[in-house]
């Protein structure tokens, strides 16, 4: 229910005492006042109003569950988790369950579960015999616990917690509340679950996380992972310095995130583009990071010796910085293959930005560049970053301009959960400025995508092949820009960020 009136109406409809529970992504709700009992609809309304004013972590409580208050004789706790040491599922069972179970680990029985979801009934019965559960309820409780394990197997849960499992005064065994985390990597086999973002987060997905996830699903070339982190910046605490974080590689990103935190900054987000991502994907990641307000700068760093070709990342990042005219300091460690070329591209492309943009290589340790970043932020005279619409040149969409489509979003592609929207773009070339020399420049930097057709650019390959050449064409755009001839623009609107913009 999302209003006190609805809560009262449900309580009235049930015609008996009810229990109210906040619907929030957290455990231990009773301890924070997130569970309450109400004997009358008026009490239900009062509790609901109080709960809807609560905040859990970064998020306001938006929903309250109102249900029949069960006549409880006994509360139990049943949780299926994956035991990484045993490489097998296990059940944690306490016959004295309920709130605060986390603090009472010593009274929890641990019961092995087979990988097909079957539980050892004898062991369960033995455990029950030592409990206070009435003997005539044992078989019903065993059946309920076995069903919980089978359900976890069926939905491929990485955890499934029933707290409490209740024996009522009239002898029924009921799962009164349940929390399930489904394995991200198995969601594709479970369309019946209707999961829109297959990712473990500690909060409901934010708008930016949804935008990022759509890009990730639409373009499977490499990894793009984006999660927003809790910052106290939301409270406007003075002196806090929030940075946009762009990592590369899971472990390297975590290590770099620690380095920037050790240097006294608060990361606004965790981002990882790796696994040889396309330039378009790196570009989109940078755009999403820069959609967060209040950043004092942009910090990029990964494992340091990435095996991916780092110049693609440099082109993608430079394009994003140029489009939003970055005016806060940025430090990017591009260590790995083609790192020298990557640093040169980044420095040269960004040299006229209001921001200081510096690139580093594998022999510059993260702690060192975090200190360098700090110096740049300390020296920076302007204010914090304010997100702004991207700058799109006037020749985009102009009649007579040369253009061809980009499309790398195979909906429901190899990794997708199906139905992911395509991500599309278009390459534009300002023909009015294409002298034979400029055309030659464009063709030379197009990585074989374009040819010189009597002084004008034309496709050298089929339109179908050209549609996935975003990395080549982003490189072409930036190289022409560096040569003082900004006649190429790769238009890659990020769905959710760029839908309502005006063309400049």
């Amino acid at each position, binding site marked *: 229910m999302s209003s006190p009136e609805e809560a009262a109406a449900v309580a009235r409809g049930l015609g008996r005492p009810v229990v109210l529970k906040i619907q929030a992504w957290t455990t231990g709700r009773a301890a924070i006042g997130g569970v309450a009992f109400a004997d009358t609809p008026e009490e239900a309304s009062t509790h609901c109003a109080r709960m809807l004013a609560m905040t859990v972590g970064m998020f306001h409580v938006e929903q309250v569950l109102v249900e029949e208050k069960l006549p409880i004789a006994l509360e139990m706790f049943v949780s299926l988790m*994956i035991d*990484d040491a045993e490489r*097998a599922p296990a059940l944690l069972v306490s016959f004295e369950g309920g709130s605060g179970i986390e603090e009472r680990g010593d009274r929890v029985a641990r019961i092995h579960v087979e990988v097909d979801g079957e539980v050892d009934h004898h062991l369960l019965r033995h455990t029950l015999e030592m409990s206070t559960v009435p003997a005539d309820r044992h078989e019903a409780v065993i059946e309920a616990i076995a069903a919980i394990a089978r359900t976890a197997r069926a939905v491929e849960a990485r955890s499934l917690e029933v707290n409490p499992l209740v024996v009522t005064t009239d002898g029924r065994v009921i799962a009164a509340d349940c929390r399930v985390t489904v394995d991200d990597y198995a969601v594709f*086999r479970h369309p019946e679950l209707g999961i829109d973002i297959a990712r*473990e987060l500690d909060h409901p997905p934010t708008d930016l996380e949804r935008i990022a996830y759509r890009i990730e699903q639409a373009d499977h070339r490499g990894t793009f992972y984006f999660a927003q982190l809790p910052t106290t910046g939301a409270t406007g605490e003075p002196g806090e310095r929030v940075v946009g974080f762009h990592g590369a*590689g899971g472990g*390297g990103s*975590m290590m770099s995130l620690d*380095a920037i935190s050790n240097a006294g900054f608060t990361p606004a987000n965790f981002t990882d583009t790796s696994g040889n991502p396309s330039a378009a994907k790196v570009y989109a990641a940078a755009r999403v990071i820069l959609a967060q307000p209040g950043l004092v700068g942009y910090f990029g760093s990964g494992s340091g010796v990435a095996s991916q070709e780092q110049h693609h990342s440099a082109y993608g990042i430079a394009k994003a910085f140029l489009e939003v005219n970055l005016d806060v300091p940025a430090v990017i460690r591009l260590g790995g293959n083609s790192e020298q070329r990557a640093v040169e591209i980044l420095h040269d492309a960004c040299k006229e930005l209001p921001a200081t943009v510096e690139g580093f290589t594998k022999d510059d340790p993260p702690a*060192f560049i975090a200190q360098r970043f700090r110096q740049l932020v300390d020296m920076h005279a302007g204010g914090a970053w304010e997100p702004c619409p991207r700058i799109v040149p006037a020749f985009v969409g102009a009649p007579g301009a040369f253009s061809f489509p980009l499309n790398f979003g195979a909906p429901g592609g190899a990794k997708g959960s199906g139905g992911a929207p395509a991500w599309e773009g278009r390459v534009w070339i300002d023909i009015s400025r294409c002298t034979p020399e400029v055309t030659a420049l464009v063709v030379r930097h197009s990585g074989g995508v374009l040819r010189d057709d009597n002084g004008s650019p034309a496709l050298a390959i089929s339109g179908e092949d050209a549609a996935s050449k975003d990395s080549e064409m982003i490189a072409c755009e930036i190289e022409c820009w560096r040569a003082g001839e900004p006649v190429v623009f790769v238009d890659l609107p990020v769905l959710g960020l760029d839908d309502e913009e005006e063309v400049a």
Partner: protein
Amino acid sequence: MAILIDETKKVLVQGVTGREGRARTRLMRGFGTNVVAGCTPGKAGEDVEGVPVFDNVADAVAAHGAFDISTIFVPARLVKDAAIEAIEAGVKLLLLVPDRVPLWDAMEIAAAARTHGASFVGPNTLGVLSPGKAVIGMIGGRADSAREWFNAPTGDGGAVGVVSRSGGMTSSCGYYLCRAGATISTLVHVGGDSVLGLRIPDVALLFQDDPETGAIVVFGEIGGSQEEQLAELIASGRVTKPVIAYIGGKVAKEGTRFSHAGAIIEGNRGTHAGKVKALQDAGATVVDSFGDLPGAAMGALGRGE
């Protein structure tokens, strides 16, 4: 000596005709790995980089005798069947390279491996590399950069064994250690998932028994219990060689996954602070800044500045 892989091991490649399988076969052979055969259903009789292709593992075994290792490069959703096929054909060590293998599939593979006395590295592993000898999977990107970056042991028993939960950081650890003057016995990326075949404690025991290895460097992460279990091995005296560790994810809070499927704090389990304390209490060295890792390792080997 080295652990898990050297130039004498007979290696099979499952999914050899795919893009990854093909590329990795070339790289592995280029580094010195004895890749004997590959398989892809329906592709028997083909040839990839001079390696004969069979329809299935059993046919490859019939033609070439038993394999020491099978490396698996098939799409994530097919990994379970490929792995169980190899286990049932008698292969005792598997390398599961693909990312995004479902958790319950990994547990099924583990159950089959237990039944048949096999073990596996991964899923979601970059591989295992013994400098100067051989590699399975690929660490270092290219054979020539891997040769340039990672120093082979000199036979003095003072090489470093590296075990990491991050692929990129496996390369990084090896690279920065060698720049500080170290030699490497073997680099092992155990994989980024929560259910893995060989885990950090298992690999530490292999390094403990390897005469070439003088110290063990660990790149750990939040989530799971691998680092805590390693601490128990140190505390109980089963691992006595110096252990130098860095644990990533200090800033992470509960419930949000950090790229790797295994890098998630669940409840109060798998926190950064808990892992650091367990390792330090057991007597391991834990560095707070990754850049301090090579120096600490050289110090532990008695080769500090």
